[in-house]
C-alpha cells in the first residue's frame, strides 16, 4: 500500500476482505483477502471479468452483501469508524449519507410505481436532511446537477418514461442526494450506449472535485481509464495488480491485466486478435493475412436495401419513423457495420433485412431477388441464406432445449434429414465456434454469456448462410469475452466467406471488424464509407460524437503498441 496524504483523507480502507457465499460444502469463496484504500476526491476502479468477485466486493463495501454471504475482514474502516463491527442498523444510518451505491440496471433499481422525484427525495426524507417544503427544490437541483435536462418535468415522470441514460442519471442523483462521502458505482454504464456512457462517465468524474471518493466497478479497462486515478485488477476473487492508472496502462505487470488491455479494440488493433484464449484448433492468423479480408468490390450484392422506410404507428401515439429512406448494399464476403445510438433505428433495420418486418416503402433484395414484400411461405425456402445473431443469446433459445436440441432443430430446418448426420454436424458446428461435444447436453442457462453467444452463432451457421446479420452481438458481454466473440466472427468470416451485417453502438468494435460502415441517426443514414476513412476523418458531426465517445485507451499505453498475437505472452 502506498500511503500518501494524511489519515483525514482516508474515506474507506479495508484489509483482507473475505466473502463467502453459502455454507458447508456448497460454499463459494468469491473474494479472498482483498485490501483497498479510497481517499477523498479519488477514483479507484476495480476491473475484472464477471465472476472475478468485483461486484461482491462493491456490495459488501456498502454493507449489502446479502443474507447468503459471509463477510469478514482483518480491518475495515469507513469514514473513521470501524465498519467491521457495523450492525444492520448502523449500515442503514451510514448508507445514503456516508456511502452511496449506483447499480448497473437503473430500470430495475428504480421503483416503477414512484416518480423519479420521489426516488431522489427519499434519502433526503429518510436521513431527515431537509424539511418537506424544501425537498422539491433540492430534487430539481440534484437532477440538474446530474445532467438531467428539464429536471422539473422529469421529476414528475416515472422511470419507464425515461431513456436508459436519463434513468442512470436519476439513479446517480438519488445516490448523491444525501451527500455521501463515498460513491460505489457497480458497472454504472454497461447497459448504456457509448454516447450516453461517455456523458455518465464525465458526470461521475466531475464529482471528485467536490471531494467525493468514487469506487468504480467495471469489466472494461478502457471505460475506467478515463476517470480512474488508480486501478485494481481483480481475478478469481483476488486483486492481482493495483497501481496508478497510467502505470497500469503503460506497464501492466500481471498477465490478466495484459489480457484485459488487449481486449480493447483500438485504432491499431484492426486485423489482430483481441483475445489470448481463442480455441486451440485455430492458429491465430498473421496480421497481414487478417488485414486483407476478401475484397468486397468484386462480388455482387447479396443483400441490398433500397430506400427502406418503416413507420411505427400506435393508436393514441404519434407515429414514429424508425427507419427513414435507408439504402445499403452488402457485397458477398463483405463486413458492413451499422453504427448508431440506441433508438437510431439500427435494430429495426436488422429486422427489415431479415424479412421479419415488412417495410412501409422501399425494397429489400436477397441475392438479387426480391426479399421484402413476399409472403412468408415464399421466403421460407430462402431463409437459409441469411441468418441472425441476436443481442441476448439466452433469450434466443427455447428455455426447455439443451444445446444439442437447439442445433438439431436448426439442422433439421436446414433440410438435414438423417439423424446421425445431424448429430455429427452439430458437433462440428460446436467445434467451429470453439466449443466441444460435451456442450451438446448442457442447457443454455448453465453456460456463460460468451458460450451462449457461441452456441447462437453455431446455430446461425447451421444452414450454411451467405449473410450473417448480427444485432449487437457483443454489447451484453464482458470486454474480454467480447474480444473472443469478435475474434470468432473475424475467423468465421475469413473461413466461410460470410458477409456480415454487424450492428453495434460501438464504433471501436465496428472499426475492428468491418470494411465499411454506415452511421445511423434518427432512423436515417448520415454517413457511409470505408471504416478507415470514417474513423480517421468523420464527415458528419454525429459520427464525431460517436467516435469521441468510444472508450479507448490513451495513446502510448501498452495497448497502443501491443505486440501481435504471435508475440503475445502466454497469458492465463
Amino acid at each position: 500500500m502506498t500511503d500518501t496524504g494524511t489519515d483525514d483523507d482516508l474515506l474507506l480502507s479495508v484489509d483482507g476482505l473475505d466473502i463467502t457465499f453459502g455454507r458447508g460444502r456448497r460454499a463459494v469463496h468469491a473474494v479472498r483477502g482483498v485490501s483497498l484504500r479510497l481517499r477523498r476526491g479519488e477514483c479507484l476502479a476495480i476491473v475484472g471479468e464477471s465472476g472475478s468477485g468485483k461486484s461482491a466486493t462493491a456490495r459488501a463495501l456498502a454493507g449489502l452483501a446479502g443474507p447468503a454471504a459471509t463477510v469478514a475482514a482483518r480491518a475495515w474502516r469507513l469514514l473513521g469508524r470501524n465498519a467491521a463491527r457495523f450492525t444492520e442498523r448502523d449500515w442503514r444510518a451510514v448508507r445514503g449519507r456516508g456511502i452511496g451505491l449506483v447499480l448497473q440496471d437503473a430500470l430495475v433499481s428504480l421503483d416503477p410505481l414512484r416518480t423519479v422525484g420521489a426516488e431522489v427525495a427519499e434519502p433526503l426524507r429518510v436521513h431527515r436532511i431537509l424539511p418537506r417544503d424544501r425537498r422539491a427544490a433540492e430534487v430539481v437541483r440534484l437532477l440538474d446537477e446530474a445532467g438531467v435536462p428539464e429536471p422539473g418535468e422529469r421529476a414528475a415522470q416515472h422511470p419507464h418514461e425515461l431513456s436508459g441514460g436519463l434513468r442512470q442519471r436519476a439513479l446517480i442523483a438519488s445516490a448523491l442526494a444525501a451527500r455521501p462521502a463515498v460513491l460505489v458505482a457497480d458497472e454504472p454504464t454497461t447497459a448504456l450506449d457509448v454516447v450516453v456512457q461517455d456523458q455518465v462517465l464525465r458526470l461521475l468524474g466531475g464529482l471528485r472535485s467536490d471531494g467525493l471518493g468514487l469506487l468504480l466497478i467495471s469489466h472494461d479497462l478502457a471505460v475506467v481509464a478515463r476517470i480512474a486515478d488508480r486501478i485494481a485488477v481483480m481475478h478469481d476473487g483476488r486483486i492481482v495488480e493495483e497501481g496508478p492508472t497510467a502505470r497500469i496502462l503503460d506497464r501492466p505487470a500481471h498477465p490478466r491485466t495484459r489480457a484485459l488491455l488487449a481486449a480493447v479494440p483500438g485504432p491499431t488493433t484492426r486485423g489482430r486478435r483481441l483475445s489470448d484464449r481463442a480455441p486451440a484448433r485455430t492458429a491465430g492468423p498473421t496480421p497481414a493475412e487478417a488485414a486483407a479480408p476478401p475484397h468486397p468490390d468484386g462480388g455482387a450484392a447479396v443483400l441490398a436495401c433500397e430506400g427502406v422506410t418503416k413507420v411505427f404507428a400506435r393508436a393514441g401515439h404519434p407515429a414514429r419513423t424508425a427507419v427513414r429512406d435507408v439504402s445499403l448494399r452488402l457485397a458477398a464476403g463483405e463486413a458492413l457495420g451499422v453504427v448508431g445510438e440506441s433508438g437510431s433505428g439500427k435494430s429495426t433495420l436488422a429486422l427489415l433485412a431479415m424479412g421479419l418486418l415488412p417495410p412501409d416503402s422501399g425494397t429489400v433484395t436477397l441475392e438479387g431477388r426480391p426479399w421484402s414484400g413476399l409472403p412468408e411461405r415464399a421466403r421460407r425456402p430462402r431463409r437459409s441464406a441469411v441468418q441472425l445473431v441476436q443481442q441476448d443469446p439466452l433469450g434466443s433459445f427455447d428455455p426447455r432445449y439443451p444445446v444439442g436440441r437447439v442445433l438439431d432443430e436448426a439442422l433439421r430446418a436446414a433440410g438435414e434429414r438423417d439423424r446421425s448426420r445431424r448429430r455429427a454436424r452439430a458437433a462440428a458446428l460446436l467445434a467451429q465456434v470453439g466449443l466441444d461435444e460435451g456442450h451438446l447436453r448442457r442447457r443454455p442457462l448453465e453456460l456463460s454469456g460468451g458460450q451462449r453467444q457461441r452456441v447462437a452463432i453455431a446455430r446461425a451457421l447451421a444452414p450454411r448462410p451467405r449473410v450473417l446479420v448480427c444485432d449487437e452481438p457483443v454489447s451484453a458481454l464482458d470486454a474480454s469475452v467480447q474480444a473472443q466473440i469478435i475474434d470468432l466472427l473475424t475467423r468465421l468470416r475469413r473461413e466461410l466467406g460470410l458477409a456480415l451485417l454487424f450492428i453495434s453502438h460501438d464504433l471501436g468494435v465496428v472499426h475492428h471488424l468491418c470494411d465499411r460502415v454506415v452511421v445511423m441517426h434518427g432512423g436515417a443514414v448520415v454517413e457511409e464509407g470505408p471504416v478507415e476513412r470514417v474513423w480517421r476523418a468523420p464527415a458528419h458531426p454525429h459520427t464525431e460524437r460517436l467516435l469521441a465517445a468510444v472508450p479507448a485507451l490513451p495513446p502510448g499505453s501498452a495497448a497502443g503498441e501491443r505486440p501481435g498475437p504471435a508475440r503475445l505472452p502466454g497469458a492465463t
Partner: protein
Amino acid sequence: MTTLGVPEAALRAAGPRWRVPPAPVLAGTVLLLFAVVAARPEWFAVHSPTASDLGAALRPPGPEHPFGTDQLGRDVFARVAHGAWPSLSIGVGATALGVLLGTAVGSVSAFGGRLLDRVMMRAVDVGLAFPELLLALIVLTVLGPGPVNVLVAIGLAAAPGYARLVRSRVLVVRESAYVQAAVVMGIPRPLIVLRHVLPNTLGPVSVLATISAGTAIVLSAGLSFLGFGPQPPAAEWGLMLSEGRDHLQRAWWIAVFPGAAVTTVVVAVTVVGRWLKARLDGGPQ
C-alpha cells in the same frame, strides 16, 4: 450478468438444486396414496360401501369399523374409500376440461385476428365476473344433476381463468427471441406453435391447474352436498357430508371422516402446486 448479491460464478458453482423440500414430498406421498385408494378401494375396505345393517347402525369408530357406521349401518371407512374415485375424478376431470377449453379459447384468441380476440375476451370477462360456484350452479340448472354434469359445470366455470392465462402467455412467447429465431430458421408457423409456443405456454398453466384442482375438488363436493352430483346410495364425499349432517350431534364420525378426506387432499394438492409454482417462478427457494 450478476444476479443481485450473488455473483454468477457462485450461482453456477452451486448448480441446479434438485433436492425437494420435505413438505411437497409428504404431500405427494399423500396424493399417491389417495390415488391408489381411488383406483382400488377394495384393497383397503373389507366391507361393502352400500350393504346396510340396521342392527349395527351409528356405531362409533372401533376395531370392526375403524371410521364407525352410519345411520343405515354402512361402514364409513368403506364409503370413504369407495367415495374417493367419484369425488376426485370429478374435480380432476373438471380441471382437465377447464384447461382444455381455456387453452383452446386462449390460443384462438391470441392467434385469431384482433376482432375475434376482442369478442372472445369480452366473453371471458363476463365468465370471470361470476363466482365459479354461481357459474357452475347456473350450468347445472340448465343441464340437470348428475356426476358428469357436475364435471362439465365446474370445467366450464374454470375455463375463463385458463383462457386469460393462456392468451397472455401466448402473446409473450410469440414475441420472444426464440420464436423469432425459429422463424429465421425457416420453420413453418404451425410447427413453431406446436414446438415452441404451446409447450412454453403450458408450463404455467399446468401449475395453475394443480393449484386449482384443489378448488375443483371442493367445488364438486359442495355441489354433491347440494344434491347435484351422484345420488344416494352412492358413496361420494360431498354426499356423505350432506347425509351425515343430520346426525352430527350423535354420530360425528359420519360427516367428519369424508370431510377430513376432502381437506387432506386439497391441502396436499395445494402444497404440491405451490412448490411447482415456486420452481417455475425461478430461484431454488
